[in-house]
Structure formats: C-alpha cells, structure tokens
C-alpha cells in the first residue's frame, strides 16, 4: 500500500480519521489538541509512508503514530504545567490582565463536550478525571478496548506489549475506575 498515492491516502483518512480523532480526544481531553494530533498523524504518515511495512495493518500503524503523538503532547503539557507552577504570581497577573500564556489558561482541559449529550454530567466528569489520572499505558488500553473494540492482541501490537500484559493493564485500570467511582458515590449498580 502506497500512502503517497492521493486516492489511497484519502481512503485511509476516511476509514481511520474518526477513530484516531476520538483516540486523541480521549487521551488528551482537549478537542483542539485532538485535531492537531489527527492532522499531524496523517502528515507524518505521508512523509514516512516508506517506513510502512507491506503486509502490516495500516490501522495499527496509524494508531501507533497517533498514540506516540498524544504521549508527546501529554509530556509537553506536564512540563508546561510544572513550569507554570514555578511562576504562579506571573500566571495570576497574566490571567488578570487577559494576556495569560500558561497552559491551563490558554487551553482549559475541563470542557466536556460529549457530556452535554447525556443526563449524568457528574458521572461523565468523574470518569474523565479518573481516566486522566491513569498512567499513560493503562489509559490507552482502556480507550482502545472500550471505545475502539480492539482485541488484546491488536492493543498489544500497537503498544508493543503482549496480549496478556494488555489484559492486565485493562484489569488494573478498571479496578481503579471502579473504586474511584465508588468513592465518589457514582458507581453504577450492576447485577451479574
């Protein structure tokens, strides 16, 4: 498959853009960032099309690129947040006079677009917070599994893990989510 062929490239975009956009949005919790990552994913796929190995799955390759870009953004955010904590007075004055440049002020990450469509907004916010608190790898496994319906084998291929490790990651992440929701009194009642 030659991703530099315009028709192939367009088809790949149509097939995977929605999944990649949602993966980025769920990992980054920011719509603008998710859009940036989606664009960067396809630009990178185009420029590095020659690194795609024949016989491999395009979706796995694109998801891996997208995931790595999301990790880069998350690390950059962590770094900038740490930097802004070093100068709280400066940040406060910048926010006051409208020239804020700190990360939190420029890109508030607590906007919850999908939650407006559901009744239980508190639960949505709580779930987002709990997912944001998960380690990167666990968060990715949860998102790929729950929202992209991937098998543990596929998740392992994207993350460079064995299927068993991916499964264990999901188990740990779900435990944390469940106990977090329980503590907040928002755990849904289910019968098995």
């Amino acid at each position, binding site marked *: 498959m030659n991703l530099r062929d315009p028709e192939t490239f367009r088809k790949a975009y149509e097939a995977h853009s929605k999944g990649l956009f949602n993966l980025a949005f769920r990992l980054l919790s920011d719509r603008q960032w998710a859009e940036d990552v989606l664009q960067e994913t396809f630009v990178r796929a185009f420029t590095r099309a020659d*690194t795609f190995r024949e016989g491999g799955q395009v979706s796995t390759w694109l998801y891996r690129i997208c995931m790595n870009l999301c990790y880069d953004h998350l690390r950059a955010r962590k770094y900038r947040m740490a930097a802004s904590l070093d100068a709280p007075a400066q940040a406060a004055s910048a926010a006051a006079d409208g020239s804020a440049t700190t990360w939190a002020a420029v890109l508030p990450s607590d906007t919850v677009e999908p939650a407006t*469509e559901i009744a239980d907004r508190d639960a949505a916010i*709580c779930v987002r917070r709990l997912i944001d608190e998960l380690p990167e790898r666990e968060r990715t496994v949860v998102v790929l599994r729950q929202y992209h319906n991937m098998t543990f084998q596929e998740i392992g291929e994207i993350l460079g893990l064995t299927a068993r490790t991916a499964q264990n990651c999901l188990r740990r992440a779900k435990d944390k989510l*469940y106990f977090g929701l329980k503590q907040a009194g928002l755990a*849904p009642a289910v019968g098995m």
Partner: protein
Amino acid sequence: MNCERVLRNIDDHVDGLLPAEEAESVRDHLDTCRDCRETAAASKAASTSLAVWGDLDPPSACFDQIMAKIQALPPETLERGAARNARRNVAPTHRRILRWAVPSVAAAAAVVVAFVGTEHRAPKSARVPGAGPVAASAIASPSGSRAMLADGLYPGYERVHLDPNAWLQGVRRSDSGTNQLTRPRVVPAAQFSDGGVFASPR
C-alpha cells in the same frame, strides 16, 4: 473452570466477546464464586461508566488542512524520509540485536581489559634489565606481562600451562601493596595466543 481462568476471561465476558460455550462456563462459575462475581460486577460497572463518552466527528475541514500542510512541506523532507529508510534497510531482528549487542560487547571488553590490566601489573620488586620508559609501560599491559613472562623477566614466577576451562582464581594483595597471584589464573585465549599461559609463584 477455576478462578484464574475466569479472571483471565472476565473482561471478554463482561464485554460480550466470549464464545457461547465459554460464556456459559464463566456464568456457572460466577454463580458459585463470590469473589469472581464481585470482580465481574466491578468490571461491568467500569465499562458502563465509560459508555458516557460518545464518539465525536473530526472537523470537516481537517482533511483540507492536512493536504495544505503536506503541500507546504519542503521537498527535502520526503527525500530525508527515503534516505532514513534506506539506512534502516536491515532486517528488524538484526537491527534490534545490533542495537544492544554492540554496546554490550564493547562494555564487556572494556571491563575485561581494565580488570586484566589492573591485576596483572608486575610486582614492584621486578627488575627489568635495561628498563626505560618503554619497558615500564609494557609491564602495565597484559601483552607486556606476557612478553616479560616469556623472556623470564618476572623473578620468582614461572610459566605454567593452564586448563582454559578452569574457573578464574582469586588474587591476594601482599603486604607491600602489590597484587600477587596466589593461584594460577585463566586468561582468555584471545589475549594469550598460546591458549592460556600465565605465571604462578615458585
């Protein structure tokens, strides 16, 4: 079905991905095991809570923006990619092995050379006829030690042939502060071309 196997399949069961027969076995086990039932309930609750996030559609202008970015790329960007790929045109397994093996072998070789160089210094009492700067530096190196042994320049030591498969023996530091070999040592054949020759005290 035991607990371990049920817990291995619990997420697939909760997400409805297990084949009917296995799902039936899991259900039978859950009816009798309270711990597994609680785990399954927690997993189900977590999955249910995650359903609050719906799917979003990417902005419609996104594709045009991507194409604009690609067209704005300098041509050498694509050429660089091709060149990088040509450099990487080695079998992935070989590449992975080389990435770790080369530094590891180099580090191991450095440690061996440093160790052998330190331990095989000549005793202070060794007198080298006509010793000058060149002879002194030769003493400090393993190859220099070997040459001096061959020439009988270590008083009190003699050449012995060792079993190359024997274990490395200890070194005792003498009162005078010099390292003395208390037992024969094995030295890798690569460093001693005659297959492992060293000295032992007479």
